[in-house]
Every structure is written in structure tokens, then in C-alpha cells.
């Protein structure tokens, strides 16, 4: 190995390139800009303004944050559903006047007055909601009109009541507490905001109505198609916004007890600025209450700081306007930029030096030497199956295969002409195995581990495992469960090919050639799913050894078969059984007389092997060359390897021209025949075997001759 190769190996082993793309894919990346902004602003203000961090000042700011925050939370909820509410400022002023009139002039009890005020706010929200939600008027124009109308109402009310409001007095400790009280030293309004924010967060993230709001904002049409009542949901958000504005107005009334014509003027702009700078999207569907709070704090600190810095009133509006523009720009550009950057950097090839490939083409004495033994296989179901990744036979000889449409298709013995959909499981069913009760356990790409019982009822077994501590992407969900086998105690050992890609993108995982796969164990007695092996190079076939003390598994990109010990001295350790296959191993299955069958989905090529040791070359290829043009292992050739317990190769069956069976991904021995499946094929193959036990069947090998009780 040259120094360059050695350096490349180290560099790709220890520099986690894949992390960048994964981090960019996380939703919490949306918070990076607001959090940075908040921290920078806080540091700047704390250093630039003396006494900025004094308790009194902080408490003042917190009280204002309480009022503004309620409005921003309401507005955020409207925006999440894809709308906008400009009337919040006027509504706030209306609530202020209403509360003061009811309390100072009409001398209503405080509780009743607050309830009535909130009712008025809700009514305004309902008007908005009705117009926008049910009549489908444009949110922007509608609320602009209600802004003006309500402002007019406020002015009328002020003309009548302003003097009496100013002269009226209130003597209520409750009202004073609302306006100036504190709980454990924290201003009441701020506490109220926190309580409402927590409740709002809970509703939005945990309750049905919250999910509906997010869905409507994400895509109105999709939400409608999913059966969500879009008008009602939209209307609801305006009502919530109205209520929260009224609540803020009430707090304001209790704090200042004054009604002037300029109350709440321009408040909508401040609220929108806060909502956007916090990272909520203008278009809806993306955002949270937490972001609203963060935005509120940023804007409040900024406004307060500007006043303390002695800026003119106009200048401070200008700063707010500038911040709003920035927020809009970030909202538009950030997501797009993040997605495009992620698309560029997500694929991160690794360094993979494979052992020298056996000379299967040029050396006729190689155990893998090419032949044409698979050229004349019998063909079953030609053109009737789309990609039978795995095939399996029951004791009666019926043939099951997992096909692309999400079905388990069954061909009936003995002639395999009659075909039926045994069960529709959805997803992309891949590996299959029978359990001791005759249930068919299936690995489904995109879904997890499922079981089809003898009555054809489909049940989920597991779709979640323990999350790795250092993984950035959430690897608890299964993305590409691939193949499984079942131990005598019922434990299911199954492989997940890669945690970074779904089934449709497995090709990209080939390009990466890094250890993204794993093996997972499901224990039926405890119901616990645990990952037992990680960092495998496309974990694929899994097969219990004949003595059940270990299982064999295939790592496709590594071109090797390994054994994991379940008991004995080597329990919990892995050892390599075949290190240098001539191609890419897929499923492993038991054969008669203590042997195993292995499908090779394709052959290694010198050009690809070399590319695997040049990660930068592959990364550039992924970016600059269209996916269809990518260099790829040769999967137009089919091969089956027959090997013994020690990994010694007994025979190899090739279809070199790939006319009948390119890309063999599975095979099963059954009563002297071998059945072949392929993930891109439109047929199942069957070939008569010599030198095997003509009575051997898979189910009997696993569960005994008289398995599953009755036999038809």
C-alpha cells in the first residue's frame, strides 16, 4: 500500500463526512439562525448597555414579552395553517378598550369583564375565520380590512368612553395582580405566556387538531384529500389568534389602565417580525410555538435595547423593518439552500479496499469458475411477477415470493401455474421465513418486520429498535429491513441493509460503500427489539446455521459472509466465513446435507473495485454524473454459490449471459430442486439438482418433519 492510499484510508475512516448531510437534514436546523441571532443580540446588549441585565429591566422586558408573546403565538398558529392575521393589533386595542370600559365604566366584576373581552376577541377571530376559511377570501386583504374596521370601532368607542375610562377607578386586587403581580418573582403575564405556550406546543405536536393545522399549512390540497375539513381548521386558527390577542389586550389594560388612539398601532408588524425571525415559515406548515417564543424574545430585546440606546422612534421602526426583511429573506432562501446543500453533501463515499477477487473468468480451476448451468432453468410465472426478491416453499411445496407491488404471491404446487396473491402487505417485501406455527415472517423495506399468519392476517411484529447514542439521523425506525431468519426459541434475527437510504435509493448506498447496515434481534417473549451488530456494509442475507448455535450473514458491498455466534465459547463474536467472493452476496439459505446456498446479485468488476478505494472520485461522480450513468457493479449476471459449514465452496452455478436469471437475490432448495428469485426479474427459476437429498425441505429442516400439525 502506498502512503497515499494509507492516508486516504485513515482520512475516510476518521473524518465523518456523512455527518454534515445528516445534520442539514434535521428539522432542528431551522432553529440555528434564530438561536444564533438571539445569543449574539443578548451578548451585544448586555455589553453595550449598562444595567441591561439588571433584575428590574429584565422583569420589565419579561412583562412586555408576555403580552407580545401571546399575540405572536396566536399569529404563529394562523401562519402554520398557511394564513396571516393582520388584525391582531386592532384586536389588541379593541380588547384594551373593551376591558377598560367594562371594568372602569360599567363596573363589571373582573372575571366577567375578562371573559367578555376574550369573547369579543374570539368573535373578531370568528369573523376573520369565517371570511377566510369558509368564504375563501384572501387572508391578507381580509384581515387588512378587519384591521381598519376594528380600528374604526376602537376610535368610536374611545370618543364615547375615553374620558370616563380615565376618570373611573378600580379597586380590585385581582386586577392589580394581573397587571403588576408576580409569581415567584416572575411577572404574571410572562407566566401566563409560558403556560399557554406549553399548552399550544402540546396541542400542535401531540393532538389531532394540531396535526391538522400543520397538515393544512403544509399542503391544503393534500389535507383536503386526507379528509381534513380545511375551512373549519383555518377558521379555528383565526379564532385562537383572536382570543390570544384579546388576552394580550386585557393584560395591557390591567398594566397601564389607559386607552389612547395609538394603542396597538403597528403591533401586527412587530408580531409578524417576531414570528418570522423565530423561524416560522410564511407559507405555513413549518414552525412551532417555541420558534414564536424565540422570535418574541429577539424582537422585544431589540426594541427595548434600541430605546435604551437612545434611538429615535422612527429609527427603531426602521430597524424592525430591516429585521422583518431579513427574516423573509431567510425564510425563502434558507430552506432551499439547506436542501440543495444537503442534496450535494449527503452522499459521502467511504474507503473500501476489497481483497483480491478470485479469477472466476480466466481460471477454470477456481471454485467459482464460470459455467452456464443456469442457462436452461425452468421458468415459473414468466411476466407474472415483478421482482421476486425472495422465494420460499411450504411443506406442501407451494411457492411464495415477495414482489414489488407489496404482495406475497403464491404459486400452487405441483406445477406452479396457478397463481394467487397470498397477502398484500404493502411496502417492498423482501426476505421471508416460516416460523414454527406456519406464519410467514417478512422483512418489508420501508415498513419493518411483519408476519402473515395461516389465515393470511397481516400483523406488524416490529418497526423500531433502540436508537444509537451517537447517530444523528434517527436510526430507531427501520428503513430497509432486508432478510431474516428465525431461531428455534422464536427469536428473529434480521438485517437492515442501510440506515441512510430507503429501498429506492439502495444504489446510492452502493456508491457510498460504508458501514450503514446492521443486524437486529427481535425477542418474542419480551417483545424487545435490539440492534446487535452495527456498521455492516449493506447487511443482507441472514441464515441460521444448521446447529442453531450461530447465524450466517452476508455483507453485500464487502463481498463477504460472516458468522455471528449465539452460544458457545465465541458467543457474541463475529468471524468471517468467506472473505473474497467474486460478486455481491445477497440471501443465504439452508441446503440439504448441512450445506448453504448463496445468491450473488452481481459480479465484482476491476473498475468498480478500484473506484471503491477512491472515495473522492466517487463523490465527484455522484455530483457531476447523472445517476443512470454511474459506475455500478455488474448485476446483469446471475450466480448461485453452494458452500459448506466451514465456507468451503462446493459448486457454483452461473448464468453468465444473464439471459434468464440476472441478479439472483435468493434461492431455496426443496425436494431436490433449487428455486431462484431476483429483485429485478420477471420470473422465478427452477433447476433440478444432483447430489442433494431429494426429500429435504426447508420447513422440515427448521421445525421438524411434522411441522405445523396438519398437512393438506
Amino acid at each position, binding site marked *: 500500500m502506498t502512503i497515499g492510499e494509507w492516508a486516504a484510508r485513515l482520512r475516510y475512516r476518521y473524518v465523518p463526512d456523512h455527518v454534515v448531510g445528516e445534520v442539514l437534514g434535521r428539522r432542528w436546523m431551522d432553529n440555528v439562525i434564530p438561536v444564533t441571532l438571539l445569543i449574539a443580540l443578548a451578548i451585544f446588549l448586555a455589553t453595550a448597555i449598562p444595567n441591561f441585565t439588571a433584575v428590574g429591566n429584565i422583569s420589565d422586558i419579561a412583562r412586555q414579552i408576555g403580552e407580545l408573546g401571546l399575540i405572536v403565538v396566536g399569529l404563529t398558529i394562523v401562519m402554520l395553517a398557511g394564513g396571516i392575521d393582520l388584525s391582531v393589533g386592532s384586536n389588541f386595542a379593541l380588547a384594551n378598550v373593551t376591558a377598560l370600559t367594562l371594568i372602569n365604566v360599567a363596573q363589571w366584576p373582573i372575571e366577567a369583564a375578562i371573559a367578555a373581552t376574550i369573547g369579543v376577541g374570539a368573535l373578531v377571530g370568528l369573523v376573520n375565520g369565517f371570511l377566510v376559511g369558509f368564504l375563501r377570501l384572501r387572508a391578507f386583504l381580509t384581515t387588512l380590512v378587519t384591521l381598519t374596521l376594528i380600528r374604526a370601532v376602537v376610535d368610536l368607542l374611545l370618543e364615547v368612553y375615553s374620558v370616563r375610562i380615565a376618570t373611573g377607578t378600580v379597586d380590585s386586587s385581582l386586577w392589580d395582580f394581573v397587571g403588576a403581580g408576580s409569581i415567584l418573582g416572575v411577572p404574571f403575564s410572562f407566566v401566563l405566556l409560558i403556560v399557554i405556550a406549553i399548552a399550544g406546543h402540546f396541542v400542535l405536536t401531540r393532538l389531532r387538531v394540531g396535526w391538522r393545522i400543520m397538515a393544512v399549512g403544509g399542503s391544503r390540497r393534500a389535507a383536503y384529500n386526507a379528509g381534513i375539513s380545511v375551512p373549519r381548521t383555518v377558521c379555528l386558527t383565526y379564532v385562537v389568534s383572536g382570543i390570544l390577542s384579546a388576552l394580550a389586550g386585557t393584560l395591557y389594560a390591567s398594566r397601564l389602565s389607559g386607552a389612547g388612539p395609538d394603542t396597538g398601532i403597528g403591533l401586527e408588524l412587530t408580531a409578524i417580525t417576531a414570528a418570522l425571525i423565530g423561524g416560522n415559515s410564511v407559507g405555513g406548515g413549518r414552525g412551532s410555538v417555541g420558534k414564536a417564543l424565540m422570535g418574541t424574545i429577539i424582537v422585544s430585546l431589540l426594541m427595548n435595547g434600541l430605546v435604551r440606546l437612545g434611538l429615535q422612534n422612527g429609527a427603531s421602526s426602521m430597524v424592525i423593518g430591516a429585521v422583518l426583511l431579513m427574516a423573509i429573506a431567510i425564510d425563502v432562501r434558507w430552506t432551499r439552500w439547506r436542501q440543495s446543500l444537503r442534496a450535494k453533501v449527503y452522499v459521502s463515499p467511504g474507503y473500501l479496499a476489497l481483497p483480491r477477487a478470485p479469477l472466476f*473468468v480466466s481460471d477454470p480451476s477456481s471454485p467459482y469458475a464460470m459455467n452456464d448451468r443456469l442457462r436452461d432453468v425452468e421458468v415459473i410465472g414468466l411476466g407474472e411477477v415483478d421482482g421476486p426478491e425472495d422465494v420460499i416453499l411450504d411443506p406442501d411445496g407451494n411457492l411464495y415470493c415477495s414482489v414489488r407491488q407489496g404482495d406475497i404471491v403464491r404459486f400452487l404446487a405441483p406445477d406452479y401455474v396457478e397463481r394467487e396473491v397470498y397477502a398484500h402487505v404493502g411496502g417492498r417485501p423482501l426476505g421471508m421465513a416460516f416460523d414454527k406455527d406456519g406464519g410467514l415472517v417478512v422483512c418489508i423495506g420501508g415498513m419493518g418486520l411483519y408476519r402473515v399468519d395461516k389465515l393470511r392476517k397481516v400483523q406488524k411484529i416490529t418497526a423500531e429498535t433502540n436508537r444509537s447514542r451517537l447517530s444523528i439521523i434517527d436510526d430507531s425506525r427501520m428503513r430497509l429491513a432486508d432478510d431474516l431468519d428465525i431461531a428455534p426459541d422464536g427469536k428473529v434475527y434480521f438485517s437492515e441493509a442501510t440506515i441512510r437510504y430507503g429501498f429506492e435509493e439502495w444504489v446510492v448506498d452502493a456508491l457510498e460503500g460504508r458501514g450503514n447496515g446492521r443486524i437486529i434481534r427481535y425477542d418474542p417473549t419480551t417483545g424487545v427489539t435490539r440492534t446487535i451488530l452495527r456498521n455492516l456494509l449493506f447487511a443482507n442475507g441472514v441464515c441460521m446455521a444448521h446447529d442453531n448455535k450461530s447465524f450466517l450473514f452476508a455483507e453485500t458491498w464487502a463481498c463477504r459472509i460472516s458468522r455471528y455466534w449465539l452460544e458457545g465459547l465465541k458467543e457474541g463474536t463475529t468471524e468471517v466465513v468467506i472473505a473474497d467472493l467474486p460478486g455481491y452476496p445477497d440471501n443465504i439459505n439452508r441446503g440439504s446435507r448441512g450445506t448453504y446456498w448463496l445468491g450473488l446479485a452481481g459480479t465484482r468488476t*476491476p473498475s468498480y473495485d478500484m473506484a471503491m478505494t477512491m472515495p473522492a472520485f466517487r463523490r465527484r461522480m455522484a455530483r457531476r454524473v447523472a*445517476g443512470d450513468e454511474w459506475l455500478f457493479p455488474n448485476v446483469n449476471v446471475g450466480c448461485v454459490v453452494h458452500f459448506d459449514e466451514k465456507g468451503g465452496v462446493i459448486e457454483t452455478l452461473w448464468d453468465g449471459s444473464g439471459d434468464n436469471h440476472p441478479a439472483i437475490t435468493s434461492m431455496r432448495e426443496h425436494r431436490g430442486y433449487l428455486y431462484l428469485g431476483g429483485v429485478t426479474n420477471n420470473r422465478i427459476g427452477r433447476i433440478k439438482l444432483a447430489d442433494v437429498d431429494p426429500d429435504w425441505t426447508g420447513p422440515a429442516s427448521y421445525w421438524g418433519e411434522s411441522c405445523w400439525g396438519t398437512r393438506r
Partner: protein
Amino acid sequence: MNQLTRAIDSWFGRGEASITIPPMDGAFRPNDHLDLAASNLEAPAPDCLAVTTQGVIVSSDRSLLRVDKPHGAEIASFDMAISALTGLPDGGAAVGLVDGRIVFVGGERGGTTLAKNPDIACITALTPASDGALLVANGSATNGPAAWKRDLMEKNASGSVWRIDRQGRASCLAGDLAYPYGLLEDAGSLVVSESWRCALTRISSSADGRKEPVLENLPAYPSRLSRADDMTIWLALFAPRSQLVEFVLSENGYRARMIREIDADYWVAPCLRSGLTPLEPTQQGGVKQLGVLKPWSPSRSYGLVARLDPAFRPTASLHSRANGRRHGVTSCLMVDKRLFFAAKGDGIVASRTYEGLAS
């Protein structure tokens, strides 16, 4: 500034460094006209076609065969493989051998041999000049005709065009050509197909051998040129350009290692017939789906013949696509309204009538 832009472009793979190839569109819209042509002759490696008094003949490995006879009656055979062939005005033929000799068969100079010239070791095309001299395309200064793949992967442009008069005196008409693989006299000047530039280049007859592009940005690598009676020009293109190959050409590290460590048959490079062994590189889009190789899938080999008008503008083309069986066409000839072509990759000479097939 230019240098800097180029460096930045090559780092990001954009601008001049972006990997683009011309699409098969316009006059190059795909069809399966080559696959529909009737087979005339199957031979190990039919390469170059010519018309002599014996009719249409073709070179295949070491022999010259008659195309119109069912089993390709052998006219002549040599101790070396033939790399180029042309018919002469007197009805004879000139044959270029891989070691650089030129042998005349039939006609008034029949039986004579021009000794090898050390400067002309890679004869890829021959054509008679109007004054009785012979024009010779020398593909590469460093690689023989069999090592054309290496010449491409080394990104050479060391080919040259020579004129050998009846006395055997050779003079160089132009050098620094990127694998000249076809010759055609045109209005006193010479048009050369430069394979690695995917272009046709005109070499003026003046002493300085000035070069000027005639047709550029071909979607495949051009080889021999011929002219039909109606003055249209027929161009054989022996392998398709592909994004992957262009990418590998831009990757110096990978290319150097590939040339050093891998057998040329298994290179990521164009070829006359792909898919012969499982050790060849394949591409993602070339995976058989449901037992079918899609005709539009990326392929390292292809069959293509283009029809150019007298001004060398492409007007139509005949194809054998990724799933076709007429790949690697190195020569084509229009005789009596019948188009003959030699698909070297698939070992077949076929012909069909051509009267403005819709492309």
C-alpha cells in the same frame, strides 16, 4: 483570471469542467435502422469496406473478403492484421497492415508493397488522392491501431495525416490530430475525422496544413468517411460518447491507475461491443429490468452511421441502440443505392437500401 476561473470550475465541476455530452437528437434521433438491415456476411472482425473490380470487399483480421459472396470468399490474406483498406481508381485496393506496411492488391500496382515508415505506425485510414498519390491517416504516434482505447485514455492528440506519392516518398500534411480515423478528399482539401475530438476537421492543401473545424460536437466517436454517388457523405461512428467516460477522462488519478492496473478490456472506456464478460464495467441505468435491457440505457458500445450533406451537415442517421446487435460500426459505404456497413463489434457486414429513411 482565466486560469483562476478554470481552477474554480474544475474544483466545482462546472463551466468548462462540467460533464456534458451532446444529446442524440435532431439528425441523430435514435431508431433501429441498422438492426433492420439484411446481413451480408459474418466475419470475426469486419472492419473496413471498399469497392474494387471484385465488388464490395471488407477487411477482417488478416484477410480480405468479398461481401457479395455468401461465405465471404477470401481474396487475399496477410501475415498481419489489416488496419485500413481503400479502393483505388484503377479497381485495385490498398491495404494498411498493423505493422505499418501498405500492400497493393489488384489494379496496376497489385503485388507491390510500400515498406513501413517509422513515422506511420498506426494506419487507420487510406484514401487515394486525385493525383495518384495515397493519403494515409496515422492514428497515433505512440500507440498501434489495436491500442486505440489506450490512446483515448491517454488523451493523446499525436495523430497525423500523410501523403505518399507513387515513388513512396512520404510527406506529412498535418500533425497533432486527435486520432484521425477517416479521410475524405473534398474540393482540393482533405477532411479528417478526429475521433477523440468527436469532430471532423478540414486540412487545407496549402503547405502549412492549416486546420479548420468542419463539424464538431458529435454524439459519438467518428471513424471512416465515404462519399456516395449523389455527393452525400456517409460517416461511421464506432462508439458512443458517455457522461461516465467523459468523467473518467477528467479524473486523472483514476485514469492513470486504471491504465496501469486494469486490463484494457475492463476499462471504463468506449468499446466496440460491451457486455461480453461480467468483469466489464456497467452503469446503473444498464441494469436489466424484468429481463429486458432498455434500448435507451447507457452503453459503452453502440451502432451509428450518419448521413451528411455535401457541406458536412448531418441530415439523418441509422442506429443500433444499447440492446441492438450491430454495434461498433467502423466503416460504411453507399454502393448502388445500397448502404453497406461493417459492424466490427458484432462481427457482421450488413446492407440496406437507403432512400431518405425517416429518422
